[in-house]
């Protein structure tokens, strides 16, 4: 039986979390919603629970990677077959969840579908110019390494099937995980497909990659990508046949 989970990492999103939870329940009702509260100071957890979400409360802030991974651990342990990540700040439109689900099942089936801001018509939220430049660098790099065109390597809006869930539950980058996660799947020879989505400007909270953090983000991710290439391929999927 198929079971679907929407993982919503949230840090101090009391202002928007209720809306996101109810939007997911409305537009993708086959999905259970799991809000991972990463040590918020406000009432994010209580508001999310009242809106109908399951809630994991981290005892303190462990960072986006650790919080999302906790969601994948939950999905793995509770037998979910598909898990989608939806940001708690309102950037991702829950109406796109079903489109990701359809893309996952398209022929040939893939293990992960990501929502891309740069595929197809580009309307809605546009990142600032330096940020777009950084995004493009990573997109080219990931395309080069994986040998398939990737237009939005830094998208956090993505859906994984069971093997992706198991992989991320075991091994997930602790911070700024988007780029590394795609390469991780590639290293395990799992296929990825992109879906054109429209991202909205965030309704609350602030970006983790704001202001002076950007050079650090670039350096950290580039280094992680480089070291990842040096790592031995952990061939957990030995038989594709």
């Amino acid at each position, binding site marked *: 039986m198929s079971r679907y989970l929407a993982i919503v990492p949230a840090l101090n999103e009391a202002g928007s979390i209720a809306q996101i939870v109810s939007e997911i329940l409305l537009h993708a009702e086959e999905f259970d919603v799991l809000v*991972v509260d990463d040590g918020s100071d406000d009432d994010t957890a209580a508001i999310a629970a009242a809106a109908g979400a*399951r*809630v*994991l*409360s*981290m*005892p*303190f802030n*462990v*960072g986006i990677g*650790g919080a999302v*991974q*906790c969601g994948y*651990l*939950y999905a793995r*342990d509770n037998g979910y077959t598909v898990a989608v990540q939806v940001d708690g700040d309102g950037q991702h439109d829950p109406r796109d969840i079903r489109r990701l689900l359809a893309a996952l099942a398209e022929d040939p089936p893939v293990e992960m579908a990501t929502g891309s801001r740069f595929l197809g018509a580009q309307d809605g939220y546009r990142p600032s110019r330096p940020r777009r430049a950084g995004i493009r660098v990573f997109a080219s790099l990931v395309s080069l390494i994986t040998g398939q065109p990737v237009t939005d390597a830094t998208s956090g809006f993505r859906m994984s099937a069971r093997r992706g869930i198991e992989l991320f539950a075991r091994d997930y980058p*602790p911070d700024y995980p988007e780029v590394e996660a795609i390469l991780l799947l590639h290293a395990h020879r799992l296929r990825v497909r992109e879906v054109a989505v429209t991202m909205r400007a965030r309704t609350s909270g602030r970006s983790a990659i704001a202001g002076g953090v950007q050079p650090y983000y670039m350096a950290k991710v580039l280094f992680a990508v480089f070291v990842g290439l040096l790592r031995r391929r952990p061939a957990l999927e030995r038989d594709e046949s």
Partner: protein
Amino acid sequence: MSAIVLAVAKAPPTYQRVAVIAIAVLVLALVVELVRRRRLMERYALLWLLAASGLFVLGVWQGLLTTLATDVGIRSAPNALFALGFAFVVALLLSLTLVISRLSDQNKQLAQRLALLANRLEELEREPPEP
């Protein structure tokens, strides 16, 4: 007073040796005491013991430092000492960041396990099992 100054001026190497040996013994004693009080774990004490022992050997074995320095082409022995000390500090820092990395990973795993267990417990409390 002047006699002491004269004695030091006459035989600086001996005076320095005593000072070096004293410092080495003090560091050794401090490390052992910290381990004894369980403030410092044995495995992290090893690097410090190694450094203090090295200092002790250099103090006792006169000429070793000069020989070592000449062998690697360092003209003045104190410079060799600085190089050694710097290498030690770098090694210690690297080992500390290794420890921190491991601790933060374990810390993350504990937090995740705790959040999952708390959620499970809440679920179980909400729907008690059928008798």
